[in-house]
């Protein structure tokens, strides 16, 4: 009497296995930096031992040629780089990718960050440079291709992970109840994949995100584009941090960041208006260098009397603040702040590119048998270099929660574990995202409502205040490095 239903279920199990659906325990949609890190991190969790992971990458298989980069005297750099924070380095270390990057000397430590502001005043902005230097390295500048190359190397060596290239996720069906599986279809292919957990890391136009029920995606465009390029620079020879300084200038149209790749070479991320970006892209190399040097050293708006007033106020505040901080900041006073911006001497041919900037945040990171990580869940302005680090933090959090719940016998797609991930990830991401968005609003755009003098005043006082308050600086740079504050 009791055996009959058992047989029935066996038949059902058999029929579901024999249909043309292929089953994987976890499917990761999107093989970018975050998707790859997710795959290799998950497969290393003790609880995922023997589980099958499928990584669906939309692009074709790429040869990252890690070995050839090693020790070449005239190495060329790609124009897409990331500032990798310390917690992200820990993640890459745990999956064995960081060692590969270090072997090919593919990372450069940032030891100091110097941030200054347009309209710095007569002082040439010398008083208004905000410097961050921790005892440890602040971040590492790594080419995206190096991170991807190292991660793919680890993934290809991993027997649990299957990678399908040229497989953009086209359609995904998420179940209503946990008793069913999620199914995924890719473009140009017949097979349907079935999975216990679908992880969406398919970028800001995520297909997986839009498949989640009741999804609300908050987003806006900044009306700005970022120009990237690889630059040759000439910086101060006496600088103790030579080759390890990241520069950021908040210019009138948006922040410009120079991320050091080595002693002479920097990667540029220049945020500006869409029209200006178009113009800059079309300039020839020499004109482009000229334009960039102009913006880095410009003090055009000095003529206005209101600006001069604002500048005076800032200088006063700075004096007062530096007196306050004198007692506890003796060490820092001995260091002369080098405010001289680096001089750009060249740009690598064909390294210029541009991309649009926007803000986006998914209210639901998870659903029945689905979770979003990285840009699929949140997209931010690159001014703080936090985009990929937020994504890597999602990876750490999600694999941690899954590991915990799997060890107590839960299903891989268990909603309770996913909800725990959502809570933890949002608690970390939302403040950073709002902070970055706030800085963008304050420094990045020409605001028509507030007179420029007052804006400049607020900006400069802000910078002066941060510069003298060492505890605040420490908190900010710790936050940026992604470690628990």
């Amino acid at each position, binding site marked *: 009497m009791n055996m009959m239903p058992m047989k029935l279920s066996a038949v059902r199990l058999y029929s579901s296995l024999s249909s043309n659906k292929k089953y994987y325990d976890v499917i990761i949609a999107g093989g970018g930096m975050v998707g790859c890190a997710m795959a290799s991190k998950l497969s290393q969790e003790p609880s995922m031992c023997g589980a099958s992971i499928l990584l669906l990458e939309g692009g074709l298989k790429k040869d990252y040629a890690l070995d050839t980069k090693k020790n070449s005297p005239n190495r060329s750099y790609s124009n897409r780089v990331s500032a990798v924070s310390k917690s992200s380095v820990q993640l890459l270390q745990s999956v064995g990718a960081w060692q590969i990057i270090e072997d090919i000397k593919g990372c450069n430590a940032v030891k100091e960050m110097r941030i200054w502001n347009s309209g710095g005043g007569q002082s040439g902005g010398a008083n208004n440079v905000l410097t961050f230097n921790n005892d440890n390295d602040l971040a590492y500048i790594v080419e995206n291709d190096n991170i991807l190359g190292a991660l793919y190397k680890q993934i290809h060596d991993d027997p649990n992970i299957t990678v399908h290239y040229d497989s953009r996720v086209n359609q995904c069906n998420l179940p209503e*109840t946990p008793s069913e599986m999620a199914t995924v279809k890719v473009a140009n292919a017949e097979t349907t994949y079935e999975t216990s957990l679908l992880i969406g890391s398919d970028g800001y136009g995520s297909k997986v995100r839009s498949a989640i029920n009741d999804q609300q995606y908050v987003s806006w465009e900044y009306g700005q584009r970022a120009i990237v390029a690889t630059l040759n620079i000439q910086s101060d020879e006496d600088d103790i941090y030579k080759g390890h300084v990241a520069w950021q200038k908040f210019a009138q149209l948006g922040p410009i960041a120079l991320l050091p790749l080595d002693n002479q070479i920097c990667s540029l991320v220049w945020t500006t208006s869409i029209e200006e970006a178009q113009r800059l892209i079309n300039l020839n190399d020499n004109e482009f260098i000229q334009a960039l040097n102009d913006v880095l050293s410009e003090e055009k708006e000095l003529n206005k009397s209101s600006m001069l007033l604002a500048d005076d106020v800032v200088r006063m505040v700075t004096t007062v603040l530096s007196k306050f901080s004198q007692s506890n900041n003796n060490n820092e006073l001995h260091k002369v702040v080098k405010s001289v911006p680096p001089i750009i001497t060249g740009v690598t041919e064909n390294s210029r590119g541009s991309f649009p900037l926007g803000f986006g945040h998914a209210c639901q990171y998870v659903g029945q048998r689905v979770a979003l990580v990285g840009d699929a869940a949140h997209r931010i302005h690159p001014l703080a270099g936090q985009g990929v680090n937020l994504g890597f933090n999602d990876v750490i959090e999600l694999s941690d929660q899954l590991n915990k*719940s799997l060890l107590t*016998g839960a299903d891989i797609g268990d909603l309770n574990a996913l909800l725990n991930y959502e809570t933890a990830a949002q608690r970390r991401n939302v403040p950073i995202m709002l902070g970055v968005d706030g800085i963008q609003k304050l420094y990045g755009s020409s605001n028509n409502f507030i007179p420029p003098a007052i804006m400049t005043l607020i900006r400069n006082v802000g910078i002066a205040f941060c510069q003298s308050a060492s505890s605040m600086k420490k908190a900010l740079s710790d936050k940026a490095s992604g470690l628990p504050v």
Partner: protein
Amino acid sequence: MNFITKKRNISNSINVFRFITQDFAKDTINPNEVEHHSNLKDIWWKSNGPLNALHSFNPLRISFIINGLLNMKKIETKNIGTRQSLKNIKILDVGCGGGVLTEALSRLDSNVTGIDPSKELISIAIDHSVILRNKNIKYLNESIEEHMKLNVEAYDAIVTSEVLEHISNKYSFLTSCVECLKPGGSLFITTPNRTFCSWLSVVKIGEQLNFIPKGTHQWEKFICPHELQSILEMNCQCDTIAINGLTYNPFTNRWCWTDSTDISYALHAVKGK
């Protein structure tokens, strides 16, 4: 002193009860209870439903079972801290219902059997077990008394979670359970306490606010930890290893361990050799 007399009184009264019910083994099952739980069959596996508390209870009760077996040195060293932690352990889940706990146990590679008197619940459990893929799970629609006849001293561990409060004749139920246990095997029980606290939180507030399906619990049938302990010690030759208090927060849908057993508790007992 007071405690001991109380204990003795209870075991005496239970002994009397035993004489009356001895020949009616089926009596541990109450048809109304079975019917009530069978009616829940459609919502059993719905997350965010009224049975959500049962689903979110899994991490705690599983870790209680794992830790208990670890203490008794039943878990192979190489499997500690992996997804195979219950490998080669034969477990009986008495009153498995739709199989929420049974499936979790089977995912940890144990050799698990779930029994439940409700035909409907066993059939949804069997239907749902399809998602397990190649795991060792067996469901039977029978009572513990029926099961006991063919499975004397067959199991390494017996789990009866959130079941005891629905059983009329706890004495017969527990002796039958222990009968199926190998000497030195472990018995894991979770059940609400019979206190004012549990009456208020489980029966009144929980069921009124729909955290628990209405009419699930009769407070009179709840059992206190010391009563349970004395039945196990005096009549089943089982030593109680641990009694841990449990609470549930319906707003965060989380269970946690506490010092107080006032609301609910988990008990681990071991059968003498």
